[in-house]
């Protein structure tokens, strides 16, 4: 019926070229991810074991495992989560449920965006100036966690706001109409219906916090600290601690003659923790989207 004219053929050819070029560009992002992760895992394989996770580094960090760094990261993540989650969720509740569209809310949103854009090293300077020195907390898990909490606040605010906005307005209207106040509506209707979305944001914040290095370098993380092996309460929040990210930085740049696999193994543990936490957030989100009731 149709004969392919030269023009149509040219169009088809251009279409194909465009698709291949853009597809190649998209592919160019996937390939490095896979290649790098595979390469790191292969190089790290000889050292990866349960013992590696549960023994302290020793011998000038040339031997042993990463226990104290791993536990330090868990502490930093937990404490900063306890600070950032309530503040972030309430901030999102304010922005989505209370604030009207105005210049003021626009400024708040702008502040959130900018807070996310502040370089991590500037957060470190802020944490040092405000928490360590001004507030007199000293270099400690608490100071480092506060710094991390402020840095990752925008992650929680953004995803909570999205989760709250996904609750239909008619739900709220129905609740107001039976005489509930604003807060009763939020507590009874809005939060229960968006809790899973909020949870996703919190998980993303965890993965972000676990990988950060610069903000904790001067506020509470140390190169080396020996703690009781196998004791999960070995740190107090007033202690300085080791952290996985910082440990990777140290053994890559400061420690010479470390066994080749050591930094790779540390990197793989850090990367594995961050990516698996992140992937679980993504899985949770897509599961929830698939079974949404409205």
């Amino acid at each position, binding site marked *: 019926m149709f004969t392919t004219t030269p023009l149509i053929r040219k169009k088809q050819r251009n279409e194909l070229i465009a698709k291949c070029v853009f597809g190649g560009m998209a592919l160019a992002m996937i390939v490095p991810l896979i290649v790098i992760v595979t390469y790191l895992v292969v190089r790290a394989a000889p050292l990866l074991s349960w013992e590696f996770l549960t023994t302290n580094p020793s011998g000038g960090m040339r031997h042993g495992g990463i226990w104290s760094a791993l536990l330090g990261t868990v502490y930093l993540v937990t404490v900063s989560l306890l600070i950032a989650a309530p503040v972030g969720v309430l901030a999102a509740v304010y922005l989505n449920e209370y604030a009207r569209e105005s210049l003021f809310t626009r400024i708040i949103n702008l502040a959130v965006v900018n807070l996310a854009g502040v*370089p991590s090293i500037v957060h470190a300077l802020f944490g040092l*100036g405000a928490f360590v020195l001004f507030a007199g907390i000293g270099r400690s898990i608490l100071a480092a966690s506060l710094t991390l909490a402020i840095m990752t606040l925008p992650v929680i605010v953004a995803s909570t706001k999205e989760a709250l906005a996904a609750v239909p307005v008619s739900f709220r209207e129905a609740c107001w109409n039976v005489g509930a106040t604003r807060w009763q509506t939020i507590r009874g209707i809005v939060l229960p219906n968006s809790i899973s979305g909020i949870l996703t944001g919190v998980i993303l914040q965890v993965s972000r916090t676990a*990988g950060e290095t610069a903000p904790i370098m001067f506020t509470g993380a140390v190169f080396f600290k020996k703690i009781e092996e196998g004791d999960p309460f070995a740190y107090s929040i007033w202690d300085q601690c080791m952290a996985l990210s910082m440990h990777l930085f140290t053994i890559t740049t400061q420690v010479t003659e470390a066994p080749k696999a050591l930094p790779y193994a540390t990197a793989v543990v850090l990367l594995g923790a961050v990516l698996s936490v992140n992937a679980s957030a993504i899985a949770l989100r897509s599961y929830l989207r698939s079974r949404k009731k409205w």
Partner: protein
Amino acid sequence: MKQEVATLGSAARSRTSEAPAQIAARRRRVEAVSERVLEWLIRLCGVSAILFVFGIFFFVFREGVGLLFGDFSLRKFLFSTEWYPTSHSNVRYGVLALLAGTASVTVTAMLIAVPFGLGAAIFVSEFCGKRTKESLKVVIELLAAIPSVVWGFIGISVMNPLIQDVFHVPVGLNVLNGALLLALMSVPIMVSIGEDALKAVPDSFREAATALGATRWQVVYKVLVPAAKNGLLAAVLLGVGRAVGETMAVLMATGHAVNIPHSVFDPVRTLTATIAAELGEASVGSPHYQVLFLVGILLFSITFVVNLSADLIVKGVRKG
């Protein structure tokens, strides 16, 4: 013992003897007060982001301001390439070389990241099916999640020997290395913002163009890109902001040399890397310590302006 019980009993009786209406009224009062307290708390958290941004500026400035009152020339600070903060005879704080370091790494990174980021955004938004799109977005999100210190480690352990072999240069820790890492780090944000921008273009635009016989490629470059250009520009700016502020990866991968680079194979040092590398050695309150906080303020201002303009481009134009 018996007496106690008796008094307790009478207290309970007196409480129950209160009119139910009174109890209800009291409970309502308590609820009203607690609700007001909660609302104040929510409001406080709402404005906390503003407080934090001002707090960051205030506290960083507070630590560095001491230097401004002494023998300090802003002109020398910004336009001198001599950065000798620990010299015994003649201490000089010129950040031009550091600025050049940041600029060279960022610009090179953007030369790589912008075409790839926007190309991938176009592919994700226009050229692929739903399933491919979902899985690509997951990969992009995971790519964005890789911690910067891991990127830095990759720079040292993978890219460094690779660059030495491919380009036959003596040192692989240089502008190119840092730029490649930064490109990989800033592509995800460009793709997600760029895809949002393309998605915001109404479908009627696509339908109208397709009805006139345009192929998908023609729709993209004649209709979508012009219509979404502000959003795409914002995506690029956010990528720039990310690259300028990145610390650990450039600290580890660009080599430590305070100089103005002449080619992509020269090692440099960026503003962020300088703070990270030197703050540990500078004693609290010393001029060296203070100047590092001033560098922090400079960085804060640069990223603030970049992010602000990205926001204005997206929102301001949408309104007008």
